[in-house]
């Protein structure tokens, strides 16, 4: 592995260089698509009655967009704190396997544990996809610096985007505002479909999209959890059956 042998003598200087290279990746096409989805999120949060400070705070602390949209949904439906936490936790389980997959890519022989715990906060769909794609081209010792640059820049830049849009939202023409509210579902619809690992993921998506609004009418307040449990359960059964058929 030649990339690991040509580390310059001055480690802190090259750390900074790799940090900045990671930061620059935040302004790639996937980064800009994410920013457009955050434009939509700012409108959603304002509509739900959150203040500017609460909205920006939520972006920094939660970061993952699906989790935030679920949290806003829970706030809108008047859910209690435990119910909201449970719905958000269920929507964020995917973060654990994503981090599990990323850690071996990022870890060097001398990487400290707390660095990995700290950096894991930046894991969400976009930074994860970019990292899994780009980390291989980064010297192993510099991977944490690179990801720190990418992750922190994405979070900070989108906190700024959300603040600016929140302030400007009222002065937007209705057509622009309506278009912004369409950004979030379209971003999720396409990126979630693309990130599915197995066919069961697509089955789960189709079921969830139909069951969500259906259960919203039938059992309001239990729509997200119900759709997740029923749709996910059926998709998993589909996975087991198709695997059994394949091996038979």
């Amino acid at each position, binding site marked *: 592995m030649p990339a690991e042998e040509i580390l310059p003598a001055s480690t802190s200087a090259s750390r900074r260089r790799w940090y900045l290279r990671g930061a620059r990746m935040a302004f790639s096409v*996937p980064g800009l698509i994410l920013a457009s989805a955050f434009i939509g999120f700012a409108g*959603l949060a304002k509509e739900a009655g959150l203040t500017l400070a609460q909205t920006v705070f*939520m972006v920094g602390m*939660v*970061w993952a967009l*699906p*989790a*935030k*949209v*679920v*949290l806003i*949904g829970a706030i809108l439906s008047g859910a209690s*704190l435990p119910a*909201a936490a449970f719905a958000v*936790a269920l929507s*964020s389980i*995917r*973060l*654990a*396997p994503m*981090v*599990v997959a990323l*850690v*071996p890519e990022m870890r060097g022989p001398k990487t400290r544990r707390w660095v990995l*715990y700290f950096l894991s*906060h930046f894991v969400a769909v976009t930074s994860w996809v970019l990292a899994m794609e780009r980390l291989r081209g980064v010297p192993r010792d510099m991977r944490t610096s690179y990801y720190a640059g990418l992750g922190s820049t994405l979070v900070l830049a989108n906190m700024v985007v959300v603040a600016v849009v929140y302030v400007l939202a009222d002065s937007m023409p*209705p*057509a622009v505002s*309506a*278009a912004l*509210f*369409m950004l979030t*579902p*379209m971003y*999720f*619809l*396409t990126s*979630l*479909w*693309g990130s*599915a690992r*197995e066919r069961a993921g697509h089955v*789960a*998506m189709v079921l*969830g*999209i139909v069951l*969500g*609004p259906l*259960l*919203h009418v039938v059992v309001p307040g239990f*729509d*997200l959890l119900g*759709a997740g*449990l029923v*749709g*996910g359960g059926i*998709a*998993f059964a589909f*996975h*087991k059956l198709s695997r059994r058929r394949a091996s038979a």
Partner: protein
Amino acid sequence: MTFHAIDAWWWPFLFILVAGWLATDAWRFLGVYLGDRIGEDSDLLVLVRALATALVAAVIGNLIVFPSGELADTSFALRLASAAMGFLAYLWLGRKVLVGIVVAEVVLLAGMAFNF
């Protein structure tokens, strides 16, 4: 214990911390802890991914069928057509997220311009 239950400046922030930060970073920290102890295609992970995917998909469905803001003033048929054509464009034109979003937005804005 809802978001608006306690009339103090800190309550919404505490609500966001517990229901938002704790509920997401707990999974990230668990991910670091488990490291490479779990196989990526173990059945448990498939089940976990399926549940999570269906839940997020339910959020997408609700955002399109029961939208908020100015989008609520458009017709359901227009939103459905916009999302469907955007998604088909994504599927057929090289699976680019950007293509899906642009097509959906163009259909939506054109529909609004012609009062569908």
